[in-house]
């Protein structure tokens, strides 16, 4: 009986050692492999994404396009009106019903940073490794679905993103950091699940995001890899100036 107890303790101990013994380099390597490997990740040029988007407790279909480098467009419905958030490779623009206009407009500075970040195409750890951002292993944490490695990624703009990589699948399951909401800095948590392979790259098909008092859910029905997306998709539409009516 005593021997059995010792064996059990050794097995349990070994499991913990495995979880705690990996170096940051090993975790990065395993994460990139779990995502499909550098070759497959680099081979993805553009994505067309469709599904349902939940905002303000209402769910509506959305479409999203992402293309290297830094091109992004997200068409959705918010509080009953069509909204678009986009980054054309240089600048962000939006059509946002909460601003009281259906015309496209450039984003305020702080909010522009969020869209620019959303336009990033690579998996976060891969992006950090490729660009030489500092990645620190903070340890392991027990999340709702099991233990995860906590990696802190120091971006060049001094923003720290805390990524949690599942200790079993080595896929990212959570991000904790900060963002902006109408220009106000707020904390952000995002949760990633239902990974499926798209051209050899594992991509999350369920994403829950909480920031400030906001709650958003992306339930992704399909992700299609493509060589390119038409440039006009990302360009801010030009709005013709409406001539003022005489006497108004």
């Amino acid at each position: 009986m005593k021997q059995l107890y010792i064996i059990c303790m050794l097995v349990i101990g070994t499991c913990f050692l495995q979880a705690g013994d990996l170096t940051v380099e090993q975790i990065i390597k395993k994460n990139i492999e779990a995502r499909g490997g550098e070759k497959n990740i680099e081979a993805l040029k553009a994505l067309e994404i469709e599904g349902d988007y939940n905002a303000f407790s209402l769910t509506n279909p959305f479409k999203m396009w992402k293309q290297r480098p830094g091109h992004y467009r997200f068409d959705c419905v918010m509080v009953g009106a069509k909204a678009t958030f986009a980054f054309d490779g240089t600048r962000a623009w939006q059509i946002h019903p909460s601003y009281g206009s259906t015309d496209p407009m450039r984003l305020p500075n702080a909010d522009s940073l969020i869209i620019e970040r959303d336009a990033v195409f690579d998996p976060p750890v891969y992006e950090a490794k490729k660009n030489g951002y500092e990645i620190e292993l903070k340890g392991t944490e027990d999340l709702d679905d099991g233990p995860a490695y906590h990696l802190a990624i120091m971006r060049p703009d001094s923003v720290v993103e805390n990524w949690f990589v599942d200790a079993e699948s080595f896929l990212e399951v959570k991000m904790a950091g900060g963002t902006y909401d109408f220009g106000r800095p707020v904390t952000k948590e995002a949760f990633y699940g239902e990974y499926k392979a798209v051209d050899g790259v594992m991509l999350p098909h369920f994403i829950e995001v909480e920031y400030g008092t906001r709650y958003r859910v992306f339930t992704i029905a399909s992700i299609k890899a493509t060589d390119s997306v038409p440039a006009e998709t990302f360009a801010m539409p030009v709005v013709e100036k409406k001539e003022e009516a005489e006497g108004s």
Partner: protein
Amino acid sequence: MAKLFTIKNLIAVLLIALIFPASGDEGKEKWRQFRGEMRNGVSPSTNLLDTYPEAGPKKLWSKEIGSGFSTILIENDILYTMYAKDSSEYLAAFDKSKGTESWSTELGKALYNEFGDGPRSTPLITENMIYALSSNGELLAVNKKDGSKSWNRSFNKDYESPTPRFGFSMSPILFKDMLIIEAGGKVEGEGEARKSFNNLIALNAKTGEQLWQHTFEGRASYSSPIQIDFPSGPQILFVTSGRIFSLNPTDGSVVWENRVPGAIAMPILLPGMQLFLSNPDQGGCTMLQLDKEGKAPADTLWQNKFMRNHFNSSIYHDGAIYGFSNATLRCIDVETGKRMWNKRGLGKGSLVAADNKLFVLSDKGKVVVVEAVSDSYKELGTFQAIEGKSWTSPTIANGIIYLRNFSQMAAFDIRKSSL
């Protein structure tokens, strides 16, 4: 006399008790104000289902009503709530067995808001009257038998208060014959010289006459007051404009005040005169130790970001706080503030407690019944009760759960005897 205590009689009494459990069948339980009789979100109902059939418990009825977020009240056989229809807001009474509307009274023009039109406040039922606040600040006293108007006050006209961004949302409290509520106030000046004022007021519940008014610099909040009974006497506690104001209800004088983060969720009084506050933004939650005599400001016991209630309040049960930290259902320990468990996927939901269980309504109308224990998340059952945006917290009385989404009401029998 001795014959009364025969075994036969005892068995008969036990059988009657089993068939007609203490809670549920008599229809004695009431829910006459926001968050129930004690304004804490806890129902006295017992003998509720421990397991739930896949198809859900017995549905009694569902009914289309107008839009709004007002919670459902119950007294005897009548339900009351508020809604918006066409361009007006209404207070209405419904038969509890079928949900049939028996009367409705117009409160004033409806609030239009991109997050949902209609009333936010919950009415208050007294012996003969029901008091309702529209989202544009019309406070009406209505005869609860037939809906006839007795008196009304306008926060816009009487206190020069502009309608808050999301509408007047606070729910009144009754102290003796006084109706106590936050009324907002006037705005003076422009630009940097702009000043907003707020009023905490008491009205004669019979006449609507103002009895006292406490005016200060601030803005109308979305939080509702509670009553705390100190040895030195009762106080009415408001969390508004970044402060706690604890008022002497007889004259409206401030007995003590604390600076705290603003909140929408109601404060929760805990055993040992501790007070729990929760803020949706960066402030998070705070546990205060109230002065036992209620004469001095409170001391902070702990503060953290684990429970960030947005527009729905938490529940206290047996040493733990349960609530939605934004969109995560969470349990935290009262003594330490430590996070005990999390459950995601229910959106910006709401909850009430009864029979040592939490009845959680997801923001998409799914009811999740959870054992009210802090050691781990233990789900007892779940059913899709209603569809669509559901931001209004449930009501439980006499073993029936009453639910509301943005435009529909429904009732389910959750008594053990219902299966």
